[in-house]
């Protein structure tokens, strides 16, 4: 018999997704996969917001999630544009080869 699902279950799931996304951002070299990891993190945040919103029986959590999705869309559009410009100029998608500003 499984225990009933509480808000804490959703919070644990959100923390796991967040950590997976952070590991992806910190370890991968491919810029596209980095942006996908950012999407995973934003999804984890949304799960958190909606779970708390339901726990408090308020709709503000869902409104905030809509704004988060909006920012995620803007980030993806501009980020992928930057990626295309980057590939055109440098012929690489690896973040550790983009080290012009690095000392």
């Amino acid at each position, binding site marked *: 018999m499984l225990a009933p699902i509480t808000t804490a279950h959703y919070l644990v799931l959100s923390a796991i997704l967040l950590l997976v996304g952070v590991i992806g951002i910190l370890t991968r070299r491919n810029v596209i996969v980095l942006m996908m990891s950012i999407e995973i993190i934003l999804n984890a945040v949304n799960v958190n917001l909606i779970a708390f919103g339901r726990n408090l029986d308020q709709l503000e959590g869902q409104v905030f999630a809509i704004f988060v999705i909006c920012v995620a869309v803007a980030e993806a559009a501009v980020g992928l*544009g930057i990626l295309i410009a980057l590939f055109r100029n440098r012929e690489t998608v690896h973040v550790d080869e983009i080290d012009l500003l690095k000392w």
Partner: protein
Amino acid sequence: MTEAVFFYCFAALAVAGAVLTVTMRNAVHCAISLIASLGGVAGLYLMLSAEFLFAVQIVLYIGGIMVLFLFVIMLVNLEAAARERQFHRAWPGAVACAGGTAALIAWFWLRGADTLRLPPGVQPTPREGGNVESLAMVLFREYLVPFELASLLLLVAIVGGVMMAKKRI
């Protein structure tokens, strides 16, 4: 009982998709795993009685953003990149940082276990007109200015995306 089964199915889909996204070699495979992960999260939205966000997640994330990702993967030549090293040389440090964050979250979780003991199985009060209408009431009455700011942000993002991706304006 049924709710628990569905929760664990969707949660497993979301986490497995996320793990595959950060570990797969080919970027197209990463994108497909991310679609699975986003689908699992969409199911969780449905379980949290956020029907509008469920639809938004399917239409906008899986339908919109992922197609954008796949287009960019198509434009950028990734066949050479798939054959190279996939992880940074500094990956042990990064994993150690992530592990430290996980330990910190777990520590706070255990410390605050009493305050985090949220009431189980809270049933949201059914609202007149369903989720979409009540969400629209909140969004357009109390959060109208942020909503308009968000539309401005999207306009800037459109212009910025075109500016960045175009060779010569």
